[in-house]
Structures are given as C-alpha cells and as structure tokens.
C-alpha cells in the first residue's frame, strides 16, 4: 500500500464513485482513509442528526456536493408532527463559516427557511446546484435570493416542496448576466409566474436541458419557450389547455416537431385531452413519462398516448389507467424498468382502478422491470407468485393495497406466500413495502431470503414479536425499518439491541413498545438517539408500562440533538 504516492491513490479513487465504495475504501487503512477523505467531493448524509456539520467539514475539506436527509420517511404521510426538526440552518451556517466551497446542496425532507437560502446564496460564491425534495419552510423570497445571488447557478430543482408563494417576482431576480442555467424545476409552486421574465430567462440560457413549469404557465408561454429551447431534454408542462383549433395550438404542434431531444415528459397539471395529439410526435423518443399529476387525462386518451411510447423506461401514472391500460403498457413498453401507479382517488376510498391483473400483465410484458410502486385495490398470492417468476430483477418492490389488512380476495388467505415468493425470487431486492393481510410468516420469509434488503416498510401486519425478530435477525443489510400499527413490543425491540447501530434508523408507531422498553434500550445503547414523540401530552414520566405512540431511533455520533421540540423526548 505504501508503494504508491498519494496522488496515484487519489487518481485511482477518482474512479470509485459510489458512496458505498468510497466509504469502504476509507476503511482499509489510515493512509487510504486520509487520501480518500481529502479527495472526496460528494458526501451523502442519510440522517442529518447522525453527525454534526463540524464533523463533516473537518473530515472532508474538499467537499463540493452535499446531500442531506432530515425527517423520517413516514413524515411524508403526516405521521411526524410539524416541528419535529430537520433544520438545514445549522449546516448552512457551518458551511458558510468554513472554507468549504460547496457547489451543490441536495436536501430531502428538511426544513429550509428563507434565511437559510439567503445565507447560502451570499456565502457560497461558487454555488451551482440546489435540489430540494419534499422540503418546507421557505417562500419565493428565499428563491429570489438564490436567483439573485448565485452567479453561477446551474440547477434549481424544486420537487414536491411546500412553498409559500408570495409572488412570481423571484424569476425576475435572475440577473441578465445569468446564462448558466441547465435545469429549472418549479412545478410545485402554486402561484403566479412572471411569464415574460420566464421567457427571457429561457432565451438567455443556451444550456438549458431541463425545464419543469408550474400550473400558472399557460400553453402560449410553453409554445414560446419551446421555440427558444428546442434542445430541451426534460420538459414538464404547466397548464396544458387550449382550444385545439387555435393558432397557438397549431404553432405548438409545429414547434414540438423541432424538439427532438425530449426524453422526459411530465406535468400536465391541467390538461385538455384534445390537445394531446401535439405531443404524439415526441412520444416515440420518450424514456420517462410522468403523468401522475395529470388527473385530467383519462382511460382512452391515456392509452392512446402510451401506445406511442415504445421506448419508455420509466412510467408514473394514475390508476385510472386501469388493468386494461396496464395491459397496453405491457405490450408497448418493453423496455420498462420503473413503474409507479398512484391512486387517483387520493382519499383512498372507493375503488382503485387497478388490481392484481394489471400487475401480472406488466410483469409478463416487461421483464426488465426493477422498480415498482403500485397502489391497488387488491392482490392475490397467485398473482404475486407469477410476478416473482416473471420479474426476478426487482430492486424496489412497493405494494400498497389500499385497504389495510386485506387478504387475498380469492382464497381469503394472508399474502404471506405471495410476498415470500417475491423475496425468494428477487435476490437483489433492496427495498420492500408490504401491505394487505400478513402474518408472522411473511417476516420469516423475509428474514430467510431477503439478503440484500435495506429498507422495509410495514403497516398493519404480523401477529407477534416474532415477526419483527425474524427481520432483525435475518436481514443483514437492513438499514431502515419503519413499522406502524403492528403488534411488536418490547421483546422484539430489545432482543438484539446491537442491531440498531448497524442501521440508519428504526421507526415504530402505534405498536406495543412501552416507555420502559424504550428507556432500557436508550440506556444500553448510548450511541443511539431514542426519540419518543409525545404529541398530546399523554405520557407521564415514570409510567413505564405506557405504550409509546411514536418512537424513532437512529444511530448518531453526536448524542441527543439540541433542537428537539418539547414534544420530542430523547431518552
């Protein structure tokens, strides 16, 4: 190992790109650790409370790109109270006080304030890329600061954030000298947009490859934009409504013909289906299509569109496509790798329009499928077994049967065998979400077969502590386990406490763990933060037998966090 000068090692490490591999490299010996950390540019922090900004900055002085995740996954579903935490401010403060020339910041489920954005924009001179996913706490004022101050901004990507929209002026804050934009996504903004400013911005951004508009951008503007930016690779339409007999629509049809580079298409937040033919010419080139917000496109229109998309690799749609529509997908999209079918009736009641038949059809027609998110009305063991056989390559398999604890409607059996077949057949499965009626047996299968499993989401399942224990014992690579409404108690929690230090986090809500159990765990494992979320002041200290409603534990280098709100107790 000492044969090579550091520069050579560094050069070799340049070819090691993935975080995992680089982490492994850093563990080989002190020399490698040093060379690796000094040359590392991209760091991924899966839990912002696992370490402190200072630790990060000390270890990686060459940091250029940082990814941070805050709240636990179940926060997406309103299970985590609003002010739980996940603030990015301390990170930005620390970075701005350091000599780190951060260029890219990617945040997920974090609380971002306008002050944070402003500080970021003023203190990081070389900042180029901001990606915010499912974040909240900021407004268009913060965006204006980013636009105005980040002279070399290349990417501003806002995905599904809750943003208070105060005005459309932030777009005008991009100086005329800003010509470096490559990617701009503001589809989640709810308010008005300064259309002229948008058009001018697009006109002076020759490198623009990805543009996703919000609902406030009408078809006329889309037309103008596409005229200026036929080189777009990724397009998200805004409001896609017009009179198909109009001049504007005609122009659009012609303009789109020139957009030969478009590979990703999304948006259609509002849509007049009669205007869809304008996009038919680009369908053949599409590799990614996201119509999951396009509630206005129904059945036959949807199918007509999809029939033209033979090269699709990724498809996100609403379940109004129905089983029949999925059969069309199966016969058309032979290259399909990722499929997400969302419920169009978001209240979750009534009929999801897809059943096990749609999934079976897909599995038969799309052998390359490796990622699935499927909300459906019902599922059978037989179907899952067929799917497992047809698609042994699943990496992510997330099935959500809308009705909790629903069994196989044909046999009235739990779905243990079906999911068992999936984990047995899909040897590379990394992420699994279960639903339907499930007993401890499914967890036995998971523990036995799911060797690569890293993330497991469980709801309303299992009969006893054994279920959870099978998983904890069997899945060696488990990193994230999230459980809600299952009968797992202290025994399951406490049997193998060392396991939790090998994992990123564990979430348990509406289970049977008690305050006493959590306290015991916290005492035995000082390097875990065991947080109890006590929302309604129900818990009294000292009543050990009390059931804990929500517990979130995670490994950390820095002990209990100082920004925990009143209702979060770190034991």
């Amino acid at each position, binding site marked *: 190992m000492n044969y090579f000068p550091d520069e050579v090692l560094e050069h070799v490490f340049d070819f090691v790109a993935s975080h995992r591999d680089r982490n492994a490299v850093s563990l080989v010996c002190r020399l490698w650790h040093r060379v690796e950390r000094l040359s590392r540019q991209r760091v991924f922090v899966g839990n912002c409370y696992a370490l402190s900004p200072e630790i990060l900055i000390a270890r990686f002085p060459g940091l250029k790109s940082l990814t941070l995740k805050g709240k636990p996954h179940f926060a*997406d579903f309103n299970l985590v109270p609003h002010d739980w935490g996940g603030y990015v401010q301390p990170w930005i403060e620390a970075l701005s006080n350091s000599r780190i020339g951060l260029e890219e910041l990617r945040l997920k489920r974090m609380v971002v304030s306008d002050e944070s954005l402003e500080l970021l924009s003023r203190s990081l001179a070389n900042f180029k890329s901001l990606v915010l996913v499912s974040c909240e706490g900021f407004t268009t004022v913060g965006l204006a600061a980013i636009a105005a101050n980040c002279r070399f901004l290349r990417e501003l990507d806002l995905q599904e954030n809750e943003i208070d929209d105060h005005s459309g002026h932030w777009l005008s804050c991009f100086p005329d000298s800003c010509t470096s934009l490559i990617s701009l996504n503001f589809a989640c903004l709810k308010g008005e947009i300064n259309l002229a400013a948008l058009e001018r911005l697009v006109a002076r951004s020759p490198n623009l490859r990805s543009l996703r508009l919000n609902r406030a951008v009408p078809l006329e503007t889309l037309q103008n934009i596409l005229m200026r930016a036929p080189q777009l690779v990724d397009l998200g339409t805004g409001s896609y409504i017009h009179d198909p007999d109009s001049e504007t629509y005609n122009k659009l049809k012609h303009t789109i013909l020139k957009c030969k580079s478009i590979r990703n298409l999304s948006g259609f937040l*509002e849509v*007049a289906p009669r205007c869809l033919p304008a996009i038919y010419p680009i369908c053949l080139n599409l590799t990614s299509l996201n119509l999951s917000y396009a509630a206005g496109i129904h059945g036959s229109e949807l199918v007509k569109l999809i029939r033209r998309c033979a090269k699709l690799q990724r498809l996100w749609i609403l379940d109004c496509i129905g089983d029949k529509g999925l059969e069309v997908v199966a016969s058309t999209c032979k290259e399909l790798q990722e499929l997400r079918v969302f419920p169009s009736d*978001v209240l979750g009641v009534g009929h999801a329009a897809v059943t096990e038949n749609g999934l079976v059809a897909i599995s038969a027609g799309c052998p390359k499928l490796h990622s699935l998110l499927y909300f459906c009305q019902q599922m059978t063991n037989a179907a899952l077994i067929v799917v497992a056989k047809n698609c042994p390559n699943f990496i992510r398999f997330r099935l959500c049967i809308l009705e909790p604890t629903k069994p196989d409607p044909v046999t009235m059996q739990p779905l243990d065998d079906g999911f068992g077949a999936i984990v047995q057949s899909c040897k590379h499965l990394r992420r699994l979400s279960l639903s339907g009626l499930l007993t401890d*047996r499914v967890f036995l299968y998971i523990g036995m077969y799911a060797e690569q499993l890293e993330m497991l989401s469980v709801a309303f399942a299992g009969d006893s502590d054994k279920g959870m224990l099978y998983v904890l014992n069997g899945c060696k690579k488990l990193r994230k386990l999230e459980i809600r409404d299952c009968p797992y108690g202290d025994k399951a929690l406490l049997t193998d406490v060392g396991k939790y230090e090998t994992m990123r986090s564990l979430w348990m809500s509406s289970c049977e763990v008690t305050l006493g159990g959590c306290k015991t765990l916290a005492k035995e494992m000082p390097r875990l933060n065991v947080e109890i979320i006590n929302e309604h002041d129900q818990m009294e200290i000292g009543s050990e037998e009390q059931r804990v409603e929500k517990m979130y534990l995670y490994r950390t280098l820095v002990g209990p966090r100082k920004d925990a709100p009143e209702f979060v107790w770190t034991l």
Partner: protein
Amino acid sequence: MSPLLLTADEGEQSNVSSSPTVDCISQNGSGLKECNYMGLSDCSSVDCSAVSSSSEEKKNNLNLKATELRLGLPGSQSPGRTPELCLLNTGKHDEKPLFPLIPSKEGICSLLQKHVVSGNKRGFSDTIDVFSEVKGSVYTAGNWMIHATSDSQPPQSVGQGKFPGNSGMNVVPSSMSSGACSRILEFSGKILQEDPCSTNGISHNHKTASKNNSSAPALKAQVVGWPPIRSFRKNSLATTPKNSPIALFVKVSMDGAPYQRKVDLRTYSTYQELSTALEKMFSCFTIGQCGSQGAPGREMLSESKLRDLLHGSEYVLTYEDKDGDWMLVGDVPWVMFIESCKRLKIMRGSDAIGLAPRAMEKTSKRI
C-alpha cells in the same frame, strides 16, 4: 380462512342500537368475538382458534383514544375529545368560520360524545353498518381507513359470511388490532345511531343499511398516513379538477347585501378555504359576528364561546345544486360539491329553518 372474532362489549351501553347488534352476533352462534389488538395478535389469520385476551383489551382501551391522531373534515370529531373541538377542523386553521359550514356535523358530534365512553369493541359492530351502508365512500375517524369494497369482490368472499355481505369488511376485523378496531370505527359507527334500523345485527346490515343511505351523512375522516401518499401529492390531486379545468365561477348572494359576488370554486380545495374567502368577501356586510373568533391560537373553544358562535352566528351557507335544490354546504366531499354547485347563498339562520336548527338543537343538548 380468517375467523372473524367479536367479543361482547364490556363498555358502557350507550345506545340501544348497539346492544342488539352484539346480541345478534352471539346469536349467530358462530362464536364470533371481537378481538382486541393483542387478542388478534395471538391468532394468525390462518388458524381459527384465537381467543381475545380481555385484560389486554382493557389496557388497550385506556390510552388508545388519547394517543390517536386523527384528521377529519371541519366539524368531524374524534371521540374522546372535548365537545368544544367539534366545530373545528383538522386544526390547520385557527379561524372559525363565519357561517358554520357544516352544522349538521355538530349533530353528529353530539351523538359521538355520548358514545365515546363506550368500550372500544362496541364500535366494531357498528362499523359494519357504516361500511355496508355507504358503498365505498365512508371513512372512519381514527387510525384506520377502511372502505367498503362492494362490487368487485369475487363471489367466494361471500362465504366469509359472518360479516355483512360486504366482503371488503370481512377482512378487516379479523386481522385488525383491537386498538385499531375499536378506536376507529366507533366513530363512524355512531353516525348511524340516528337510525336504529341500521343496526339490526350484522347479517341484516347489508340490506337495511343501504336503504338508510340518505340518513347518515358521509362523514369522512381518514386513517392518518394511509394510504401512504405524500401529502404534497394528495393536496395537489385534490385541487386538480378531473374534468375540464376552466374556472368555475358561481354567484354568491347574501341576504341583505346590496350586491352579489362571484367566486371561482376551483381556487379552493377545502370548505374551510371557501368559508374563509367568503367571510372576507362579505365581512363588510355583517356586524358583530366576529367576536367569538378571537379565540387563541389553539383550537380550543370554551363552552361559552362555542355557544356564542352558534347562537350568535346568523348565517348559514347554502348552495343550489344541479337539480335546483337548496342544500347545506359541507355534506359532500369537496370535489363532488364543486361539480354540483350552481350558486351559493348565505342565508340567515332563520331562513334556513330546515337546515341549521336541528344541528343547533343538538349542540345545545350537548353543551
């Protein structure tokens, strides 16, 4: 074959209709017992011999309600909460509506309050009524969302038999934890208390309940966090109209106001938003309505304030639907409402005799 287990409820007998239901169950001779969470956890859905453990039931009874987090439409009420909360919505908005949009819900709430203390198990059988009654459109407050899946169930599920023909329901109880069962469903189950016929025993529910469709308003409250869809997506799709998304302007008239207004219903996604907007629009015409709205940031209203609001508030929001009938705003899901609403009218309470007073009556009983 998953057994469906029901136990005789040991809680308070709060209403006539509940006990006959329980009796009916045991009379069915199937040995059905409601199982609590722990009880169910002892039985796999595969074998049939589970027995509920009553001591654990009791333990679960204690804290479950308090620990629940529930969401519901304005006016929907979670059992166990204080009456003052009745008027309030999910808690996101601190403003109190000027016109109680959903006064009928208060009626429901008052009933709920009475039944709240009943044992958790009680709600279970009552729920059956709810589910079989409203085809696929009823939610329950509490941690579970269960919908009646009627049509698409294959015939085999009928064999399940012990529960109302609604096969979707059959599944739910057997594997549901007691905490769940109980917590949830007593809430929506109570809705039907108004109509005793609907609780004539489980096996009858399917038929009788459907007749009673109109009597129980579809109270929608969801299991928190289920189905697991990001809130952003939920909110987004809720506001996206599925049909032609052109603006939907409707006239709004108010009794006594010199001129009418128009609002675009598409710009709102909840009743609360509409109410707030209308309030702002018409505030210049109303006098002294807003006193009780100075409630502090928390959702708690004191009893007296609640009374003031109800009795003091003279106005009721109504709408004319496609059939030309004047309806009280707030009964149906928002999306359904905007599709059928032709005009809005802010009526004086005294004019809305058929609509509001019953609700006010019930609330005054509660208070």
